[in-house]
């Protein structure tokens, strides 16, 4: 536990000293403030009588306020799922490469701490940094919605958990690349590619159908099953928050398989990173 606390202290202090923490909260707060001022709703007896977005009237009269809240929150969840992992990875991918710098790694490894414990403590600390920020962002937006509409829709809060789950998988990938290359830049780039590749690969069956060789189709399917399911998980977040009958594609997405395979990717990356870090010579 002391090792975990030491790593959390180290990661948070670094984030504070390097302005990461401040930038994180500045961006989140900016997002929250814009959202708070942009939306003006006129609610009469539980129904929306009028709505303004950035001061412009929008034709939404007659829509139930519940429906509107779900619509806004599901849209926000999807947007955050697309945008926030980039910020989270950018802010945490350096944790392993910087620890592995010559002259620094010796200081950590000369303590009576197993290497796997050290690496996983750092992973948890990084995830906590990302988690605190996602919790702040989603929590504040949820409160603004409650304040403006008097509708409390807790599913939006759980969207944060799914986003954090996805960030956890990407951070595991960043840690693995960090252990292999000791490079922050390569860790960030590779993780972004993994994230983005998940979107086109959702059509892996169609992609595999157009290639001429079986082995090529096999590679496409393998990639699909190995890397995190960006597209399906984003769909699942939106479906989960919107709480309505799912369209056909979303129903297909909201199955346990994308979650399980993404979790397997994270565990696999962490296991491989731990094994390599254990064997590494400094």
């Amino acid at each position: 536990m002391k090792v975990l606390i030491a790593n959390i202290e180290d990661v948070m202090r670094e984030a504070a000293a390097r302005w990461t923490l401040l930038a994180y909260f500045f961006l989140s707060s900016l997002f929250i403030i814009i959202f708070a001022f942009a939306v003006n709703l006129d609610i009469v007896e539980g129904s929306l009588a009028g709505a303004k977005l950035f001061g412009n009237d929008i034709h939404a009269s007659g829509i139930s306020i519940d429906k509107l809240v779900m619509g806004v929150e599901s849209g926000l969840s999807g947007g955050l799922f697309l945008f926030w992992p980039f910020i989270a990875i950018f802010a945490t991918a350096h944790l392993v490469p910087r620890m592995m710098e010559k002259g620094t790694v010796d200081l950590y490894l000369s303590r009576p701490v197993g290497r796997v414990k050290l690496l996983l403590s750092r992973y948890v600390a990084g995830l906590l940094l990302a988690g605190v920020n996602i919790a702040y962002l989603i929590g504040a937006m949820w409160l603004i919605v409650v304040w403006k509409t008097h509708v409390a829709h807790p599913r939006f809060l759980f969207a944060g958990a799914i986003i954090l789950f996805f960030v956890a998988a990407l951070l595991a990938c960043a840690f693995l690349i960090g252990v292999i290359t000791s490079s922050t830049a390569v860790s960030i780039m590779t993780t972004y590619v993994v994230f983005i590749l998940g979107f086109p690969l959702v059509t892996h069956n169609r992609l595999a159908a157009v290639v001429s060789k079986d082995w090529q189709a096999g590679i496409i399917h393998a990639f699909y099953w190995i890397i995190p399911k960006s597209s399906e998980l984003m769909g699942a977040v939106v479906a989960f928050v919107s709480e309505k009958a799912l369209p056909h594609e979303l129903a297909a997405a909201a199955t346990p398989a994308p979650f399980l395979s993404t979790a397997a990717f994270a565990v696999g990356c962490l296991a491989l990173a731990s094994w390599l870090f254990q064997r590494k010579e400094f």
Partner: protein
Amino acid sequence: MSTPVIEVSALRKEYRSAFGRPPIVAIDGIDFTVGAGELFGLLGPNGAGKTTTVKILLGLTRATTGTATVHGLAVSDPESRRRVGYLPEGHKIPNYLTARQALSIFGRMSDMSKRDIDARTLELLERVRLSQWIDVRVKKFSKGMTQRLGLACALVHRPDVLLLDEPTDGVDPVGRREIRDLLIDEARTNGTTVLLNSHLLSEIELTCDKVAMLRKGKVAAAGTIEELTRQTAKYKMVASVVDDALLAAFRESGAGVERVNGHLELSVNDVEHLNVLVDRLRANGGMLTELAPLRSTLEDVFVDLIKAPDMPLTPSPSPRERGEGGQRPGEGPDVQP
């Protein structure tokens, strides 16, 4: 010898080379033991294997063959590092931390409680003259201050073994002396075992009880500083009326003779040979006023060792082990040219 704390036996480290080239041998079967409370110096030129040896002792690098233990525990066991403090060469304490925060983080990683860390922080920073800088970030520290903070980090959990890699690197002479005094105090007062890895020979000479000199990955010489620097075959002679004829006679007997600053430096085979020279001096009407064995510095021994041609190098036996009062010229690597 006191209870062994660090034991290294037949340690060998090879680094693989690319493209089928032969492996690079960093350490080639070294053995040494460091007892409790000893100040032990590991000397050698760059690339001799000093840092690799220390890294193996910390589990940072694995030995290819051989064994290394600290307190009887294999170095692969993280528990072997519980009572070890380490100051790496060119260490980089994260520069966003203050001195207090650095000690807090490394103290926690050594399983210390917050209260214990807080008390120890004040005491240690006072000791390394950084108490006024306790809440200043490391990035504002000078090289010497960073080095002293590194030493404080190594000492934070009250280790009973200290492994120090060039601890006085970049430190001014006063700071160097303070570090030296601190290490000697740790060893004498707290019984801390210190393994000092340095190529600053004067530092080692002034600090350590025992030394192992590494050369090309092997222990080329080992022993106490006194054993390594003693040159019983070389004497300083101060005498009156020593003419050239007498010097020629000395040389004829097989002695090496040099006039240095008004006295003679004699290289003889043994004590009997020395007495023969004294007899000749007296027979020649000379008056002996001073005769003393010469000591070389550790630097002399080191340079001789490094310049020595490749030969099977073995730890130099002590005079006692040889069963005589001194070492003969030409025996072992730690001899005059």
